[in-house]
Each structure stands twice: as C-alpha cells, then as structure tokens.
C-alpha cells in the first residue's frame, strides 16, 4: 500500500549545519490559546518534509509563519543561515501552493506564471522563456492562454505549482495541495510533485492531514499535535517506531489494549496475558497494527501457540470487504480488535460468531506507558 522511497545517507535527524530551513522555538499565541508552541525544526537542503497532524495541530500556522503571512509571537525562522523572522513576505523568496490554488482569476495561465518574474523585473524575453519552461514542466504548454476557470482542478493545481516554482524559490511550501482533488488524481499529483521536487532538488515543506501523502512522498515526517512536535523521523521510523501513542494511532491504523506490565516482559490484560518487547512496568497501553495480526479458527492447525507469538481468543463479530482488504472485527473480552488480511479473490469470508484466535509476533507489539 505504501510505496516508500528511502533515501540513502543519514536516516536520522541531520544536525543544524546542513539545515536549509531552521525553526527555533517558533511560537504563535492567539490571546490565551497557543497555536504553535516553541517548535524546533531543521530541514536539510533538498528534502521534502511533511508537517502531519489533525486539523488545529498548528501545521498550517507554522507554514504560514514560514511564508511570512502570520507574524510569530516568539522564536526565529532561519533560511540558509539568515534570520528572516522580520523579513516581509514579498522579500522571502518562497513559493507557496495553496489548498484553494489561489490563481489570479483575471489573468491567463501564462500571466499567472509570469507574475512572480514580473515582480522581479526580469527582461521580457527571459520571462517568456521561463514561463514556457515552467508550463512544460507541468505539461500545460497548450493551455497557456486559458483563464483559470476554464481548467480542471488538477490543471489548476499544476498551474499553481508552476507559478510557485518559476521564481526558483529558496523553499517550496505546499499547504494541503491535494485535498481538493479526487482520489485518482491525488495519486498522480503526489508522484508528480515528488518527481519535480526531486529533479529540482528544492527544499520543500508539505502540510497535510493525510498520513498516506506524508509517508509516501516525504523524506521526513513531522507529526504535530496541539501546536507541539510529537515526533520527527523518516516515514519508516514514524510508522514502525512511533514515539507516542498519538503517533501510533494517527499514522496508520492500530488496535489498542490497556493492561498492567509485570516487569518481566509480560502484560496482563484482564484475565489474559501477552508478551511484549523489553521489560516495562506499571500501567501500559499496547498497540498492534491490524495487518500484523493473523486470524485463525480455534483449534485449527494454524492455531498453535509458539515461542515469540501472542495469542488472544475471541469471537468474530463482523467481516468487512474493502476491495483489497478484508477487515475482521473480533470481540476479545469486550474489546474490539481489527485484523486485516489481503483479500484473495473474495475468499476468506468466515462465519460471524465463530470462536477465533488472533495471533501476532511479540516484536510487532508497541508498548507505551500510561503515566500514573
């Protein structure tokens, strides 16, 4: 489901020396409410970083502060070792692609793309040449003389991208650029934006609430919640080793169980017990991804407890067919567990109400402390 591009080189956070964009304690307060709370972030040159989170997590506010459209309450924004916190938007040299595209309705496509170059007072022949190049890059040369309202959503999106890139910005900012497109077009645009970003080697920040976009397109994913950075890492790190329960449940689907850790690698969940990696103690929540679990009939040949495998028994309450997946809902002692399996030509339907067991490997169990 996720086609992941893993870049060679440093897989962990880069230090500040090669950071192209750096945020130091960036804060935005509206009266008493805090939209962004002392955010620190370093984006290396040429990387595409996703700001991922639910609405109201401060990701768009952060992006708009980087663009200069919102004044930060506190903190610094540094681009290429220069503090630009006080620099007005029009001198920041950033290309911003809006969710609503924000094309100028009274100008043709070519005029829209030329706008930023005209603002830089470039000679006419050069403007014409670069507009042509930019439109060729997004495959819209043929529509140069159209007005934005005569274009489809995907075409408008590509014009917006060309308009932002033609000025060769120091940073490309994308604010939920795909959320107004239908699913198929979204997949296409995702790859197109990623290809263009990589071929230009441009540093880019991508705001999204869609974990698939963040994981599949970006070099780094920054998960935000309530104005704070929850976790930053490569898509694989964020997905496989979430730092908090919030990240685990927001990025990808999870099953959640609460229990008491015994300090010997075992967690008691009601009357049952499961094995977890490490030796945590106290109240914990454990999470398991639905596709890492396996559903078997009780007493069948596959239902055999073995070393390093957890088993919970329950009864099947519902089977949902979602095309490429089958989702089994299992009632385990009052808690609902969802197990996902690839649907094989519609096979794999089971009788609801049957006693089943859920198996998963101990190493696929994520454990988080629940505080006191």
């Amino acid at each position, binding site marked *: 489901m996720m086609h992941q591009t893993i870049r060679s080189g440093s897989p962990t956070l880069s230090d500040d020396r090669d950071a192209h964009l750096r945020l130091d304690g960036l804060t935005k307060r509206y009266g008493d409410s805090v939209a962004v709370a002392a955010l620190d972030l370093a984006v290396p040159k040429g990387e595409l970083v996703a700001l991922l989170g639910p609405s109201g997590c401060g990701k768009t506010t952060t992006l708009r502060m980087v663009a200069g459209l919102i004044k930060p309450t506190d903190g610094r924004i540094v681009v290429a070792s220069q503090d630009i916190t006080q620099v007005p938007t*029009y001198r920041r040299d950033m290309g911003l692609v809006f969710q609503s595209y924000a094309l*100028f309705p009274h100008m043709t496509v070519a005029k829209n793309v030329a706008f930023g170059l005209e603002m830089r007072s470039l000679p006419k022949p050069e403007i014409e040449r670069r507009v042509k190049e930019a439109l060729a890059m997004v495959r819209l040369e043929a529509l140069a003389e159209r007005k934005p309202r005569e274009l489809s959503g995907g075409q408008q999106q590509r014009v917006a991208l060309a308009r932002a890139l033609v000025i060769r910005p120091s940073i490309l900012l994308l604010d939920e650029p795909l959320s107004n497109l239908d699913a198929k077009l979204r997949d296409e645009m995702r790859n197109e934006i990623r290809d263009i970003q990589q071929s230009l080697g441009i540093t880019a920040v991508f705001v999204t609430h869609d974990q698939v976009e963040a994981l599949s397109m970006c070099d780094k994913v920054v998960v935000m919640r309530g104005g704070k950075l929850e976790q930053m890492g490569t898509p694989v790190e964020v997905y496989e080793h979430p730092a908090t329960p919030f990240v685990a449940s927001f990025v990808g689907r999870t099953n959640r169980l609460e229990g008491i850790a015994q300090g010997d690698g075992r967690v008691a969940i009601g009357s049952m017990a499961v094995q977890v990696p490490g030796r945590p103690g106290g109240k914990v929540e454990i999470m398991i991804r639905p596709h890492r679990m396996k559903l078997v009939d009780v007493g069948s040949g596959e239902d055999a407890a073995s070393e390093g495998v957890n088993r919970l028994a329950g009864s099947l309450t519902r089977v949902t067919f979602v095309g490429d997946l089958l989702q089994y809902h299992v009632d385990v002692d009052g808690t609902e567990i969802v197990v996902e399996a690839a649907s094989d030509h519609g096979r794999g339907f089971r009788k609801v109400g049957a006693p089943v067991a859920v198996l998963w490997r101990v190493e696929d169990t994520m454990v988080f402390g629940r505080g006191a």
Partner: protein
Amino acid sequence: MEANETSVPMKIVVAVLFLFLLAPVILVVPISFSGEQILSFPPESWSLRWYAALADNPKMISAFWTSLMLGAIVTLISLAVAIPAAYVIVRMRTMGSTFLYNLFTAPLLLPTIVLGLAILIVFASIGFLGTFTGLVIGHLVITLPYALRVLATTLGNLNLSCEEAASTLGGRPLTVFRRVTLPMMAPGIVAATALCFLVSFDEVVITLFLTGPRLTTLPVELFHHVESRADPLVASVSVLLILLTLAVVMIVDRTVGLSKTFVK
C-alpha cells in the same frame, strides 16, 4: 437554471407583477407624444411638440447638464474615497474597523429629510447653499454609504489567498493591490459606479434644500415644473431619463453582467 421549467400559473403571476411595476414607465411613453396642453391619458392627439418644447426650455437643459456633471463628479469622489476605505476596513481589520464601517454606512439608516434639514442648517451658516460644491457634498453623504457597502461586500467575498499568493511571489503591498485586488474587485466597482451615479442623478429630497434659483438639478426642476403646470413636458423628460437609465444598465450588463453585479 436549465432544469426546472416555470409553470404556466407562475408565468402569469410574473407577467402581472412586471406589468404592475412597469405600468408607470409604459404609461409615460404615449403621454410624451401627446398633442394636448394638459397631462391626460390616453392623449386625444399625437405630436412631438413636447420634445420640441423641451429643446426650447433652457432651464430644463441646464438642469440636465448640472445633474449629469454632479452625478459624474459625485461618483468619482465616492469611488476614490470608498475603495481605500473598504480596503482598510475589510483587509486591515484594525480595532476601529467595525465602528468606522457603521459610521460610514449610518446615513443609509437616517430618513433623508432629516439629513437634508441638517445639511441645510450647516450649509446655511457657511454659505454653501445654492452652490455646486454644496450639492456635491450633500450627494456624497447619500452615495458614499452605498459605494462603501457594495465595495466592502465585494472585497469581503474575495479569496484572500490570491493576494497572499501575490505577496509570496514578490509583490509589494501596493503592487498586489493594483495588480490583483483591484482587478478582482472590478464587478463591485462597476456596480458601485452605476449605483452612485443613479442615486445622485435621482436624488430629490436633500437636493431640494440645497438648490437655488440659479442652480438646480433635473429632478428638482421637474418637481417645480409639475408644481406650477400640468403639461406633458415632464413625460417627454421622463422618457429621456428612462432611456439614459437603460443605457447605464445595458453598459453594466455588457461589461460584467447584471446578475453578477447586483445579485449576490
């Protein structure tokens, strides 16, 4: 628009309503071609004598030019004041924005006769009565609220992100306003222009207080004419005014579209 057909009873209702609204306009056309001395309908004889009489009436003609000039100047000043005012009130959103907006549009809520009296009292003391300047200022009190209201609504409905996009692309605030905001406000500006001009051209109540024996506007001159005589001259003037209004409306329709301008 394309889907639902209007039913026959609905069509009849609409036709009757239109007839009711347009009856005075329709009535005035035949009367203007009357050959009689006195306003009557239907006229017993036909002629162009009242159009000829109009051409020979210097007071009417000079009043018409006064009204036209007044309308044009008042409209220009209204736009020049209301466009920046709307921008400051809608876009800059300072503490006093709402207060300013209400203050600007307050004259719309006052009875015109009260405004007229107030202006009369003030102008009498500073000698603006019967002057063109006085008329311009008096009309501005009426037209500015209309202009500001239309322009503020237009600006409020504009997608702010277009202006933001322009500034990220390197546009300085004034350039963004000139190249992006102003063109996007065009329908509102055309509407405000038409509205200001028509309101000024049509204004009687305040103008009655401000005109004098030497300087008068067309509606006021018509008013005085009807007071003293009942001949069909007013009908021929009315027909010409209807044609002028129609011309303005058609220009608006051809340039930006009528429903786009006045209907929200």
